[in-house]
């Protein structure tokens, strides 16, 4: 069954919701229900959502090293099909190595109708055209449809290696993806004493965004500081 929730806020700012069960997410029925509630309540309706959980019969888990692959896929204009890049979509895959995860979006059937959070296209990556890029020894270029980043959280030596490559990747990405990767790094390191690293990363991104005339010596110096900070953590 689908769970419909209608969210309210009263004059004090306190939030509450009411729910109903639906056999299907029929938009006409949902809107009629919302309008009926609107007439009965003197709080304001702020938003509505409907959701359903599907159990999935999967394999027994066989890993615990917290390896994570992150796919960053470019998202393009879907209104006039200009292929203009407007967004980037990162997807984290727990317990996956880069070799397997790189196959995830490379299948045109799977990616049909998938979108970034803002609703832009991420379909039509041609398998084999624009290979996904792992951290270890590959770097993206303008022809790449999507990028693959592998991160392991539990092992410092791997973190050191991956963070180095991750940062390098952020530097080589177009601005939009670079910003998204930077946010990912921030999420990844939350709770870990990485303030200095983040500050330097911000500076690197700033340098790269300033007209493409980045001072490579300055970037190299900042990267070395990041690596030193990682090693001493």
């Amino acid at each position, binding site marked *: 069954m689908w769970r419909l929730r209608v969210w309210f806020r*009263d004059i004090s700012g306190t939030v509450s919701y009411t729910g109903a069960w639906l056999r299907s997410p029929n938009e006409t029925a949902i809107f009629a229900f919302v309008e009926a509630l609107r007439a009965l309540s003197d709080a304001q309706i702020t938003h509505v959502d409907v959701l359903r959980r599907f159990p999935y019969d999967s394999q027994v888990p066989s890993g615990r090293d917290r390896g994570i692959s992150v796919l960053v896929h470019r998202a393009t204009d879907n209104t006039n099909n200009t292929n203009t890049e407007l967004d980037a979509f990162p997807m984290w895959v727990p317990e996956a190595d880069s070799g397997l995860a790189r196959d995830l979006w490379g299948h045109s059937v799977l990616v049909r109708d998938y979108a970034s959070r803002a609703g832009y296209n991420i379909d039509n990556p041609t398998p084999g055209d624009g290979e996904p890029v792992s951290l270890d020894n590959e770097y993206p270029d303008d022809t790449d449809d999507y990028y693959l980043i592998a991160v392991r959280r539990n092992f410092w030596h791997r973190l050191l290696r991956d963070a180095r490559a991750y940062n390098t990747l952020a530097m080589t990405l177009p601005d939009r993806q670079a910003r998204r990767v930077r946010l990912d790094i921030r999420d990844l390191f939350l709770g870990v004493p990485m303030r200095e690293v983040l500050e330097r990363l911000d500076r690197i991104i700033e340098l790269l965004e300033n007209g493409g005339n980045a001072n490579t010596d300055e970037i190299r110096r900042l990267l070395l500081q990041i690596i030193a900070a990682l090693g001493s953590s």
Partner: protein
Amino acid sequence: MALIPDPVYTVTYTFQDETGSKATTQAYIRQGIVIDDVIARANALAAALRNVSNAQLTGYTISRGWTEDAPAGAGGGSRVERKGRTIWLADTYKTRIDIPSIATGQVLPDGALNRNSVQFLALRAVLLTDFVGDFTDSRGVSLDALAAAYESYTRTTPKRQPTRKLA
């Protein structure tokens, strides 16, 4: 004032590793396709994720949202803790739908809701007659009658309180 749909369906996949630790990841599917196709795409991606992860994929949740573009504003004195509690029957089983901050004009002096008001009859029609089979209880059995309707109060969790706290 209108409900504006989010541009995508959100699919949240949940994983569990060998130690029992859990993780989630999300994908998005464009609006404008029928729900069966959305489920099919979510399921196809589930199969792909299962193949690339060593963790167990325990399930996924599909959600869709709408946001009010210009909320009308809450009425003076409205409090969401004051509920209009309605109890509906689904083949003798009961299911509850609360109406936060029920308008005071809907409450009779004895605490019952006015079941004959235009507004309440409209809600009743939506749930029982206008969309037969759409509204159900949690088992999926259609609602078929109203059992009770009265004013009630409930507590608010700290998370849902406003950020402003008076001394």
